[in-house]
């Protein structure tokens, strides 16, 4: 018995399949789901969603910038209007975005640019690239 997982963006289904465990970052912190989890609905923060597919040793990692997660009857649905699979992230572009976001933050220092920097970091984290030192 395993989880049926769907990672859904407004334009298409990004990933679907069976998994042993799904780890996501909700507003309250990281939460992991395995089979038999109680029905759950939560808001996702900016962070990674990690899916370990059944019978596979490699994890599917996605950068999710907000969204919702619903768990019911061993079905996990991640809804996110901005989500990217790690394998589809263009590292060069993500780096450039991070640089831009950091510059913007230095210039203005407001909450919006903070969020932009965080998004850029999460994207790079998902792609498996360590974020530059001194950004935290």
């Amino acid at each position, binding site marked *: 018995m395993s989880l049926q997982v*769907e990672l*859904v*963006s*407004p*334009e*298409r*289904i990004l990933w679907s399949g069976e998994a042993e465990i799904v780890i996501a970052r*909700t*507003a*309250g912190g990281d*939460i992991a789901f395995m089979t038999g989890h*109680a*029905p*759950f*609905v*939560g*808001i996702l923060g900016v962070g990674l969603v990690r899916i370990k597919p059944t019978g596979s040793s490699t994890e599917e990692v996605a950068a999710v910038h907000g969204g*919702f997660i*619903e768990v*019911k009857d061993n079905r996990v*649905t991640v*809804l996110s*209007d901005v989500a990217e699979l790690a394998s589809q992230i263009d590292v060069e572009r993500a780096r450039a975005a991070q640089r831009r976001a950091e510059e913007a933050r230095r210039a203005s220092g407001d909450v919006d640019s903070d969020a932009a920097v965080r998004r850029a970091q999460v994207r790079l984290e998902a792609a498996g690239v360590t974020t530059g030192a001194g950004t935290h």
Partner: protein
Amino acid sequence: MAGGQERILRRRIKSVQSTKKITKAMELIAASRIVKAQARVAAARPYSDQITEVIRNLAAAGAASSNPLLVPRDEVRTVGYVVVTADRGLAGGYNSNVIRAAERDLQARRAEGKEYSLILVGKKAANYFRFRGYTIDAQFAGFSDAPTYENAREVAREVMQRYRDGSIDHVELAYTQFRSVATQRVEVRRFLPLEAAAITEAASTGPQADYEFEPAPGAILDEIVPRYVESRLFAAFLDAAASEHAARQRAMKSATDNADELIKVLVRQMNRARQDSITTEIIEIASGAEALAAAKGGVDLLRDRLVDQDFLGTDPTNLYQSRRTATTE
């Protein structure tokens, strides 16, 4: 002069033919885009289905539906219209059908003494309403044939903003629903406040499962309802895009058929004109020759040379002789 007629027709045929080439190309492009647009409509469905289900669960769990986007206002003074058209024409009645439906609704509400507010998507709607002297509150363009979620989010933000700050109390959405390649229908339907029927129904049936919520259901609902609004608008955009391509394909197909028909008629006319001019020329030559012969005293020059040879017996030398005289004469 007879040849002039022919030349004019030939030029017209050429111009119709090149027009036909263009319409044919547009027809094929539109046809291939319909397929793509349909696929996008299908691909967007899981998200909106899921988001609806989550909202239903929240409502069933007793999330207070006090969200302003869900509650109709007691007094509606201003009605907002989101009109979804294309950026380009050459799509038959596609644009004007949507615009006319929206305008009719708008005028009916105006007769009831309500204000209007226009939020226009697509260049065609903007052009029309500007020309007619309507006040346009916001306009978006440049993505009608392949809208992204980001486009829908942008428009939805504008609409929700105006709805929240009270400058509009009710929003109607006018777009073309894509039913099949053969059928598209213009819809003018309520967009905001959201139809809460499904939600209240779920709430009355009670929770189906004991959900854990993080944070509280009400807070999740406040977060998810705007996403739901966006996804509904996105769905409308995708439908409109598919309809646009279908309408364009149909319009271009009939244009191509018309061009074929026109070419057939013109070619027939041109051939007749050419026949006429050839006949006229032959008559001219023949009558000219006759006149010349008559002037020379009844000798038919043509026949004289070629056929009416005097063969002097059967002697081959004579025959040769006679041929020589015939050719050198």
